[in-house]
């Protein structure tokens, strides 16, 4: 987190560089069933972020040593395509991607009924096609829709949003420009119906009061995004509501 206090990112009326108010998220659109050969798939377009998720399985887990005797393994891969950022990303091993893959898998394992498919593997492939800021959140959200689309049984769908702080002001869903000057970042993954958290990270500096505002902003963003996820699944699965 940079913390360049001298760049003014919010005007006196509390309006942000892209015209949003503090608690507002970027425009979001979600589509399901976009990869014909996958068992389930989805894309989340969140601001300029474009993230795609595909699900394959459950299938036999290879090699045998990765099998779990009592449940399925969620084999999650988060990856940024080489053309997803302003400076090209060289393909290959990447510690950041590994960490995000791990926490995403753990978030989704909390809702997927993995115990129904012991010794098997469910592959979840998350590809960032265009990155702005908040790709890990968009990835978790896209993966939830793709898992539902693949008919994987799960007790809830996870929606992920981040709030942060710029110029000492707490705002929801930082865009790239704001993120460059961000003083804190609090991404959360929340179950749409139960309201429980399955994903939580934070870095930066937030006072107890600021932390509470950031937390509340994230919670308020869950329901509208959940509606879009349901709508996407209905559109691709013949629902007419």
């Amino acid at each position, binding site marked *: 987190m940079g913390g360049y206090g001298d760049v003014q990112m919010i005007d006196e009326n509390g309006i942000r560089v892209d015209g949003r108010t503090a608690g507002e998220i970027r425009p979001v659109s979600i589509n399901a069933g976009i990869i014909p050969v996958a068992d*389930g798939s989805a894309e989340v377009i969140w601001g300029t972020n474009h993230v795609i998720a595909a699900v394959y399985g459950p299938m036999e887990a290879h090699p045998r040593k990765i099998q779990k005797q009592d449940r399925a393994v969620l084999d999650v891969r988060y990856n940024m395509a080489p053309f997803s950022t302003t400076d090209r990303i060289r393909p290959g091993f990447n510690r950041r991607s590994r960490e995000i893959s791990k926490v995403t898998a753990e978030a989704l394992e909390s809702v997927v009924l993995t115990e129904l498919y012991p010794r098997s593997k469910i592959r979840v492939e998350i590809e960032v096609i265009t990155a702005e800021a908040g790709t890990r959140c968009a990835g978790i959200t896209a993966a939830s829709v793709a898992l539902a689309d*693949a*008919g994987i049984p799960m007790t809830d769908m996870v929606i992920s949003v981040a709030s942060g702080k710029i110029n000492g002001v707490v705002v929801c869903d930082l865009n790239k420009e704001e993120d460059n000057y961000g003083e804190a970042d609090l991404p959360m993954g929340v179950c749409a119906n139960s309201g429980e958290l399955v994903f939580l990270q934070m870095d930066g500096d937030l006072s107890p009061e600021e932390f509470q505002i950031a937390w509340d902003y994230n919670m308020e963003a869950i329901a509208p995004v959940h509606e879009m996820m349901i709508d996407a699944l209905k559109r*691709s699965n013949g629902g007419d509501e």
Partner: protein
Amino acid sequence: MSDQNARGGRDGRGTRLVTPGASLGASEGRRIGHGVVENEGQLIAVKLGALIENEEEVSVIPSHTRYTPRPGDLVIGVVEAVQSNLWFLDINAPFNALLPMSLGPGKAEFGGARNVLNVGNTVLCRIQEVDETHSSVVTMKGLGLRRIDSGIVEAIPPHLMQSLFSDSNVLKSLKSSTDCRIILADNGRMWVDGDSKSMSNVISKLEQIRAMSRDFSSLESMVEILQTEVY
């Protein structure tokens, strides 16, 4: 929770599409069917699909499923690997099934399993048993069970297999309208044999159905496609 429990009316119209996590109200003593779980007296959908709700039961007809083997199912498998006294079969399930030599199509000398069934062969077999981790053993001892040497195997989403062919006339008219021999297996596979023109007719019908397969409200039109006369 087996995918094959998912049954419902032929007409999906008027039903509600639910997503995982959707709250379905209190159980009120109703039977909990496919795709639904109970948590402290409250019912929750765990699968994407059409909600079927009546006085006795609450269940979800899934929009997409993976085949889960059950004893007695007729399945079409492809040999993936051969060992000295058993075969491993891909049966479209999360796991390969085992076909032990004793349940195979014929006797072989030790080490001669390959001469009886080789990798890449397709067989019609029956699920003999399934253990709690979904591993299954299949048998080829039984009427009509055999190696398949002609025709082609097509895929249909397993959950559609039952709804589409619940009326036996559908298969009958599909066979007569296309002039093909057809065997429906429970694992989402269908064996089709005939001259190449006839087979192409069936394949193109199935292609249309796969494209519509996620739309639970289109069951009737899918049945119509299967029964339409081909010229």
